[in-house]
């Protein structure tokens, strides 16, 4: 295998694993959401770089250009970004309520509090 080869996919994968690792291991629930965002963004990078054609330009109908990047995945990611923002906003709103109800956003501490009741 040629290294780095299509390095854009390596970047996406490394970002993805970093995000997932934070989601799984970090006890701080705000940082978990940061990890979740990194995880989602890695997929955006994946889609966007997938559609890029080397030497291609934006898909504008003009005689001077013949090579275009594929616009469809880019448009899909616009939608996915909106979904990602909604998810992050909802998660942070939940965390504000959790902070108010439990007085902490640490997962272990909350688990201990829940076990008491």
């Amino acid at each position, binding site marked *: 295998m040629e290294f780095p080869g299509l390095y854009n996919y390596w970047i996406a994968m490394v970002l993805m694993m970093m995000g*997932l690792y934070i*989601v799984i291991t970090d006890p701080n*629930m705000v940082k*978990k*959401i940061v990890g*979740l965002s990194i*995880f*989602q963004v890695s*997929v955006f990078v*994946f*889609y966007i770089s*997938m559609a890029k054609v080397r030497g291609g330009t934006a898909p504008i109908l003009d005689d001077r250009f013949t090579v275009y990047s594929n616009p*469809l*995945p880019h448009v*899909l990611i616009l*939608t*996915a970004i909106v*979904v990602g923002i*909604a*998810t992050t906003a*909802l*998660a942070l709103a*939940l*965390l504000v*309520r*959790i902070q108010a*109800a*439990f007085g902490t956003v640490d997962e272990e501490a*909350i688990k201990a509090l*829940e076990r008491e*009741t």
Partner: protein
Amino acid sequence: MISTHLPILQVLVPLLAAPVLALLRGRTLSYLVATGFVVVAFLIAIGLTIQVVHTGAVSYAIGNWAPPLGIEYRIDELTVIMLLMVTGIASAVLIGGGQSIAVEIPERRAPLFFALFCLNVAGLIGMTVTGDVFNLFVFLEISSLSTYALVAMGRDRRALTAAYQYLVIGTVGATFYVIGVGLLYMMTGTLNMADLTARVSGVESTLTIKTALAFLFIGLGVKLGMMPVHFWLPNAYAQAPSTVSAFLAGTATKVAVYVMLRIVFGIFGIGIFTSSYLADVVIALGIFAMVAASVSAIFQSDAKRLLAYSSLAQIGYILFALGLATEAGLTAAILHLFNHGLMKATLFLALTAVALRLGRTRLEDFDGLAQAMPATMLAFAVAALSLVGVPLTIGFVSKWYLLAAAFDRDGVLVAAVILGSSLLALLYLWPLVERAYFRKRPAGAPEIEEAPLALILAMWALVAVNVFLGVNSQFTVNLAANAARHLIGAVP
């Protein structure tokens, strides 16, 4: 003509209800508006059913952009079954749950609660009707995001952490789905399901397509409550407002299973199951869920949690039937999908009644309830019997077909596991029924009345459908068998 636009109206009606409801003030008004919109959606589903029965599958091009470039809504027999189930259960929950919502949701938040509920219905309907894999993701997120917010409206503060946990796991699942779609698009250049089916068969053996399948399978597995990635489900069901639990348990995971059917069988074809070890993995996961979740259910002290674990076990049955990868197995899976939705909605509605009268649903609260709430507990008992698989209920029909399908492929041992798991179901449901019917109300317990009439009617409507389809099993079985044949037939 309006009848040609029913497919888009099916999604638009509940979707447009949400912003309208968000602008309203007052509980009664928003309740009536939401119920009206949802019932209209149910009527549209009936209209679509009539169309599909008379003229076959309906295809609708959004904005008149012809598929595969435009987004296509595609409605066939299986879609119609799911539409009837989602809109029917939503109507039953709203009509029956009025009082329970009034108790559990503060007046100030009621319009927003109904707006979220309608959004959730719209998302689930959209996932069902769409023939475009990315459009499906958008609807998946509409329904998921509204579910997270609905779960967070539970009264206990633990509802907040349950919603948070669900949000994190659910988002990871949905993102996995997007990755799978991206890989599929990379290899085929299309997002339309029918188009994908045709194009995937040429590149089926590439690693990219196999990776796509793995991502899609795990992503959807999270959403449908597949056993090793199920952690969100018991907490979410137990902490959500009672009516929300009833709606979610009856529909949300079932729609995810439906999407799994569409993607894995519709696009990749049954060949990918039989040619790889995927079939064995799915069967193993199914059996694991049947046994492990049933055993967990036995040790629960709260009825809502108990039923949540029971849901996981039932999902196990469905996965197992899918893993058989035969037409009989698929028929059994569709049957079980449909009737499990009905049974769980009934059981959770009965719990809604108990929670309304007693304020909680711990096991010991059921002592002697049959005297105080005879109609509620009888509906609960019938649905419980159906869950175990007693004849004359729809549960018997699906268990029967499941057993037959298992017998055909894997023989006695697996059939024995199914029977054993049914006995476990009896073990975890019996204490509830026994407490309700054979014990006395504890001395000094407050007097309680029967559930409100609307709730009883909603419960018994679902029970009636259950028993009717259980007795006239031929009708249900034919519908499921047809749907299974079409799914398999999609791949030549």
